C-alpha cells in the first residue's frame, strides 16, 4: 500500500483541480486506501456544510457585476446627486448672506458715514431722473419731435399753421424744437397732455405739430420738390458739378440751420425770421440752378 495523499491534494481533488496523471494516481490510491477515503468523505461533508452556509452569498451576483450596477446607479442618479449638492451650496450661501446682512447692522462710525454717503447719492440720482423725465420731449412713431400746444400754434397764424402735412428737413427742425422743450417745462407738460390725446402714430399727424414759422412750410415744400427733381438723376451729374453742388449746399445748409435757430429762439423778432427766409431763398436759388443744370444735361 502506498503512502497516504496529503489533505491539500485531496481538497484539490474534490475541487476538480487535478488533471492527468495526478488525477489517475489519486483516484487509484483512494480506491485502495480506506484512510484516505474517509478523509475525502469528511472533506466532502465539510465542503457541503460550507456551501450550505454560504449559499446566499454565492447565489448573489459576483462582485464585478455588483460594482457595475453600483456605477450605473451612480450615473443614473447623478442629477439627483447634483441637486442635492447645489442645495447644499445654496444653503451655505444663505447662511453666509444671513451672516453678512447681520454684520451690516453692526454699526461702526466708518460704516455710518458710508451709509450716509450712499443715501445722498441715491437721493440725487432719483431727483436727476425725475427732472430728466419731465424735460424729455414726447416721441411718437419714431419721430423725435416735440409736440406744440395748439394754442401756441393759433397765436401764429399763417401758411405755416395750415393742416396739410409738412415736409420737414430733419436737421433744422429737430434741434431748436428740442431746445425749446427743455427750456419751458410748462409747455412740455402741456405737450404731454396733447400727446395723450393724439392718435398713436402717423408721421403726418406729428408733422402737423412740428413748430413751423408762418411761411416756412411753403419754402420747405418747394425745397422738397426741387430736391426730389435733382435726386432723380443725381448719379448722372458730372463729378465736378456734383462736388461744387455739395460744397455749396453745405454752405447753405449751415447758414440755414444757424438762421433757423436764431429765428426759433427769437420768435418776436421779425429780422430773425427775415434772415431765415433769406437763407431759405438762397437754398431755393441753389436748387433751382442745379435743377436747371440737370435739365440741360438731360436734354443734351
Amino acid at each position, binding site marked *: 500500500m502506498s503512502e497516504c495523499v496529503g489533505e491539500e491534494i485531496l481538497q484539490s481533488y474534490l475541487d476538480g483541480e487535478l488533471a492527468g496523471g495526478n488525477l489517475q494516481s489519486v483516484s487509484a490510491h483512494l480506491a485502495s486506501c480506506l484512510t484516505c477515503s474517509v478523509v475525502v468523505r469528511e472533506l466532502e461533508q465539510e465542503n457541503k456544510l460550507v456551501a450550505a452556509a454560504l449559499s446566499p452569498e454565492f447565489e448573489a451576483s459576483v462582485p464585478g457585476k455588483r460594482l457595475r450596477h453600483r456605477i450605473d446607479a451612480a450615473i443614473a442618479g447623478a442629477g439627483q446627486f447634483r441637486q442635492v449638492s447645489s442645495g447644499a451650496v445654496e444653503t451655505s450661501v444663505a447662511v453666509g448672506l444671513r451672516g453678512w446682512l447681520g454684520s451690516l447692522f453692526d454699526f461702526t462710525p466708518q460704516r455710518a458715514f458710508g451709509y450716509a454717503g450712499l443715501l445722498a447719492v441715491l437721493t440725487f440720482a432719483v431727483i436727476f431722473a425725475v427732472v430728466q423725465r419731465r424735460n424729455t420731449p414726447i416721441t411718437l412713431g419714431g419721430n423725435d419731435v416735440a409736440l406744440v400746444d395748439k394754442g401756441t400754434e393759433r397765436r401764429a397764424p399763417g401758411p405755416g399753421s395750415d393742416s396739410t402735412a409738412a415736409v420737414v428737413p430733419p436737421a433744422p427742425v429737430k434741434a431748436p424744437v428740442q431746445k425749446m422743450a427743455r427750456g419751458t417745462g410748462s409747455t412740455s407738460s402741456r405737450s404731454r397732455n396733447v400727446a395723450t390725446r393724439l392718435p398713436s402714430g402717423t408721421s403726418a399727424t406729428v408733422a402737423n405739430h412740428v413748430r413751423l414759422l408762418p411761411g416756412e412750410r411753403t419754402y420747405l415744400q418747394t425745397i422738397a420738390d426741387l430736391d426730389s427733381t435733382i435726386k432723380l438723376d443725381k448719379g448722372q451729374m*458730372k463729378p*465736378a458739378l456734383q462736388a461744387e453742388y455739395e460744397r455749396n449746399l453745405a*454752405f447753405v445748409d449751415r447758414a440755414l440751420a444757424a438762421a433757423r435757430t436764431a429765428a426759433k429762439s427769437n420768435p418776436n423778432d421779425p*429780422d430773425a425770421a*427775415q434772415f431765415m427766409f*433769406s437763407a431759405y431763398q438762397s437754398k431755393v436759388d441753389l436748387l433751382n440752378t442745379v435743377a436747371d443744370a440737370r435739365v440741360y444735361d438731360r*436734354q443734351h
Partner: protein
Amino acid sequence: MKSKITLTIFLLLLQPAGVIARVPDRKDKMPGQQIERTVAADSAVTVSLCLMSGSVTVHGWDRNEVLARSSHVNQIELKRVDGPNQSGPARKLTVLLEDKGEDRRGEDDCQAFGDVELMIPRGASVYVQTGDGAINVFEVAAVYARSQSGDIEVEKASRSVEAAGFSSDIAVKDSTGRVSLKSVGGSVTASGLSANDAADSFEASTISGEIKLDAVAHSLVNVRTVNGNVHLAGPLARAGQYTFNTTRGDVTLSLPSDASFQLNARLSKEAEITSDFPLTPKTEATTAIAPAKPLPPPVALPKTETGPTRPAAPTHQSASVVITVEPDVTIVKDSALVFKAIYTSRRVTAIHSTGDAMINVVSFSGSLRLQKN
C-alpha cells in the same frame, strides 16, 4: 557687301515714308483747318449757339452779317429759324455744328464739341450755352451766356447782360443796360456799368463766390450771397437803391468822400459796423434796454490808438433809441468813426450828408464796412 549695306539703308529710309504716306488716309482734313460760314443778317439779329463742350468767342462788328468759324468741327450750318418768311436778311439764326469723326449734326441738341468764334452785328443778341468751356462776348447789344464750369466774360454790351454759371467766374465790364449775373461757386466781377433807363437794374448773386462791383452806376443794385464777401467801390447813383443781402459774407463799401447816403442795416446782434464817414445812426432796440446796465465796450479797430467813440447811453427805456455820434478827430485817425451796434440792437439806420442814396444791408452774421475811397 557694299550693295547689302546700300540696300539696308534704302529700306530703312523707305519705311517711314510709307507711314507718312498713310496718314492722310485717316482723316479727310488736316488738323487746324478752319471751317467758316457767313450769312447776311439783320442788324438786330438773334443768334443762338449751344455746345456740349468748348469755348465760344463772340465779337460784334459793323457788318450786317453773321460769321461762324471753327477749326474743331467738320461742318457749320447757319440755320434760319425766323419763321416761314425767310426773305431778306436773317433775323434769327441758330449755329449748328457737326463734330469731326462723328456723322451727326448738332441739330438743336448741343451735342457738338469744339471751340467756335462768331462775328455778329453790334446790335445783335446772342444766346450762348456751353456745358464746359469759356464764353467771351465783346461789343454786342444783348448777351445771354451760360456755362456750367467755364468762365464768362462780357465787355461793352449795350442793352443787357444775363450770365449764369455754376462754378464759373463771371466778369462784365464797360456795359450798359440791365445786368443779371449769377454764379454758384464762382466769383462775380462787374465794373464800369450803367443803366440805359431807370428800369434797368443790376443784380448779382452767388452762394460762395465773392462779388466785386466797381463803378456800377445803376440806380437799382441788388446783391445777394450766402458765404461770399461783397465789395462795392465807386460813386453811388443819386437816389439809388442798393441792397446787399448776405448770410455770412462781409459787405465792404468803398465810397467817395462826397458820397451821400442813408444806411439801413439789419445785422446780427454782434455784427460790427465800421464807417469812415461821419454818421448819425439811429438804432432800434428789439428788446428793452436796461438803463442801469453799462453798455458793452465798443470794438476798437487796429488803426485806432486811443479807442473809438462810445455811443451815448440811452436815457430811457424805449423801443427806439436815437444815438448821435459825432466824429471825433482827436480819437480816431482820418476822421473815421467806429462803433459797434449795442448788444440789444439789430437794426442800424444812419445818415451821411443829405442821404441821397439808400443802402440796405441785410446780413445774418457778416460785418459792414464803409470806407472812403
